[in-house]
């Protein structure tokens, strides 16, 4: 009897494991948003481009990355080296790269467009590359950076998205089966207030600072004259630069990025909505794109001319 129970437990876990494997996503998307403009916010553009660079390097095609950048730092007349955006003072890593495909730029970066994008309510003549054409098999990485406060993120100095609006938009996505899992990342002051209102399942959230804390920038490049990247994203990029498409790094180690001595602010993490153990989720489930494949061995015999 004891053995029977043990064996049945064993079989049960194997079956569970099998289902865990099956519950995989079939495609990856990324929504990367920088909400602030003006030259002194150079660092926010560098932030968003750092993440853009990483997800693109790890295989998400441009057609599945929605990049919203509120200002054009690379072509700003104050930029001493045009067509570049650097993430460090040594100017070793040009995060602007050779081919950046910005989907929403300048004054197109509005709360309305962002919510329209998420919920799929864009005008019918919007080009395919500016739409989030996800389905119930899609894993989405959402990265936001800009200036925020307790419960809101400012867009363009003129409006803001509240944490409730964001939570409602995500719930609409869930109800419409527009995602399988979401990894939500935000680098702003009091960042964790933005994910506190979330109530839809399968969302893993991470924020650069807790409520009441400021998110700090990393360092100034004297040649550029402004702060060039925020601490949290700087360390996240440092981590991601070491990730290869085939590496087996888990989300759990990414959630530990930028400890307090580096970030100064406390990195917030919310895992209660997420059903999998972050330690077992490869980082490429969100930052890369590895499509599940199966080999086809038996082909249909179609040798006859079909009957018309």
């Amino acid at each position: 009897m004891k053995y029977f129970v043990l064996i049945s437990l064993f079989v049960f876990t194997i079956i569970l494991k099998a289902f865990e494997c099956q519950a995989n996503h079939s495609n990856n998307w990324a929504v990367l948003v920088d909400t602030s403009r003006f030259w002194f916010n150079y660092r926010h553009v560098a932030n968003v481009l750092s993440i853009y660079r990483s997800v693109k390097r790890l295989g998400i095609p441009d057609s599945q990355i929605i990049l919203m950048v509120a200002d054009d730092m690379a072509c700003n007349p104050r930029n001493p080296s045009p067509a570049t955006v650097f993430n460090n003072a040594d100017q070793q890593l040009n995060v602007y790269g050779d081919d950046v495909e910005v989907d929403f730029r300048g004054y197109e970066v509005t709360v309305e467009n962002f919510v329209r994008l998420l919920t799929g309510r864009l005008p019918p003549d919007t080009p395919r590359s500016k739409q989030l054409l996800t389905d119930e098999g899609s894993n989405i990485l959402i990265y936001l950076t800009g200036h925020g406060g307790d419960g809101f993120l400012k867009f363009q100095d003129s409006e803001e998205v509240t944490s409730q609006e964001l939570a409602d938009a995500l719930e609409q996505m869930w109800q419409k089966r527009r995602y399988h899992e979401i990894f939500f990342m935000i680098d702003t002051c009091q960042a964790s207030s933005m994910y506190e209102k979330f109530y839809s399942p399968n969302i893993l959230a991470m924020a650069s600072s807790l409520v009441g804390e400021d998110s700090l920038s990393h360092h100034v490049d004297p040649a550029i004259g402004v702060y060039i990247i925020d601490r949290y994203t700087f360390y996240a990029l440092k981590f991601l630069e070491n990730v290869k498409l085939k590496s087996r790094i888990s989300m759990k180690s990414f959630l530990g990025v930028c400890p307090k001595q580096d970030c100064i602010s406390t990195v917030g993490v919310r895992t209660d909505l997420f059903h999998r153990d972050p330690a077992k989720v490869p980082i490429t489930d969100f930052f890369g794109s590895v499509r599940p494949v199966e080999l086809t061995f038996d082909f249909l015999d179609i040798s006859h001319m079909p009957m018309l």
Partner: protein
Amino acid sequence: MDDNLIKEKESSVQTSTNNVNNDEVWEIIDKEDDEDLRNLSAAVYAFILLVIGIPLWWRMTEVQRHPLPYSQISQLGNMDVTIATDIFVYTKNVSKTEQIIQQLHTTFNSTMFNINAQSSTIKNLDDTLDKLETIVISPLGSLHLIETNSVDNITAGLNRNVYFSPSTNIQLLMATLKRLLQIDALSDSMISMLSPGKHSDDPQIVAERQRRVRPSSNYNVLLTVVNPEPDKLHLSWEPEIPLNRYLQPLLNQLELIADFSVQSQWLYLIDLVQKPVNLNSSFVLDKNQAQYIITPLEKKLGSGVSQNPCIHFVIYVTPCSYIPLFFHENNQLTIAMMSARWGGVQFLNADKLSCNNDSISFVPDDLSIMSPIITQFHALIGVPDMTKHVSLMPLKSSTLRMWQLDSMYRLKIIEQYTNARITLTSLSRLLGEISNIVIIEEVGKAVTESVEAATKVLEYLKIGKLDAALEYSKLAFETSEFAFTHPSLLALLYFPDDQKYAVYIPLFLPVMIPVLMSLKGVKKWIQFKYQL
């Protein structure tokens, strides 16, 4: 002169006396009417503001909301799906026929299917299978069970016939029928959409569902031929001919389900990124390596011009230094692989003679390229693999057997109906919760149309009319998508109530305060007037 002077004086005196008189008169009038006039004008102001102004303002700032059939939408959730299906049974023995009919009723009693089993009207069927295929014609959605000595086990025909030998176990026949009618797959696709996370216990059914492209009424099929070394190998092939010959008949068969638009393109000089391994004089890519070749390829394929889901087929011409190249898993080699919801990739191995030879161009075999594509296309659109459960009469064509097409119809009806139901429920909940969402007439009409179509789907399924049900399910799906994603829904979302007051109160308050304060005086005046 004097006269004139006097007259002037007189007139000036007159005017002066007139002025005095006028002022006095006005003073008197003022004194009499002062109270009345002031109170009357205050009353008129108050009337215009309160009786005309406020309702007008209220009406004009009201969010436009076309009435929606909320109760009908919530009713959709309570309605069960029943698919009426005729099954005709033929055996040589009347009592066995009765037994099978009885068994059919008990087996399918608690399922989505409402089986109407009856004995077949066709007599003396002692012909060969080929003959039977041509004689026995059953209507759309039905099945014909025929006992015959020409088969050893249960065999599904090309039309809607299922053959079984006299020795077949009836329970096995029932289990096979359940498979053929896709009872598990249909309920799995409903459950998984209604409550994500739940699914069938059968891994094959779950895998088949996850492989299917997302529901849409239009699809693009893009065939890409990649020649990484056009300088070394010249390929002479026209994709149009085999596509028309092998794929088009299948697409014609599926025309009620969806529109497929087929395109082809050539790409050059694209590296495979992964390095093949040499294995017994051929080159192989392990399955683990194979999963990394799609994403780099995908970047170059282009995202397509339309919003419709795209099914990709990539024919990768093997570079000369790696001929022959295969995929490899568990000591098995193959030239083709497929990715769920995306499409397929296959290697085209040229003969070594045509490599580095300007005079010879390699001519591939149409059939060997198209058979993996058709196989994968079947899997991607959701044709279930029945080979493990039943033997199939060989069709040797890319098209579907009639019973397979019926299954596809049922699957699409359930998929589109469930999708429309989820969308409508979610939309009605959303609109109920958020009062600022605009519902213009167009959206309201689309919702009503969608609900009506969804109800009609259920009605037509109940009487077994699959073609009409499919048509309405498509309509329900399209209109519900249209309503949910209509851009006008968000038009006022960023003009919430508090902002509405913030805009109007500074405008109206300065006017309202004196008017409201004067109301007290007006009231006193009216009381005073009527007492007199």
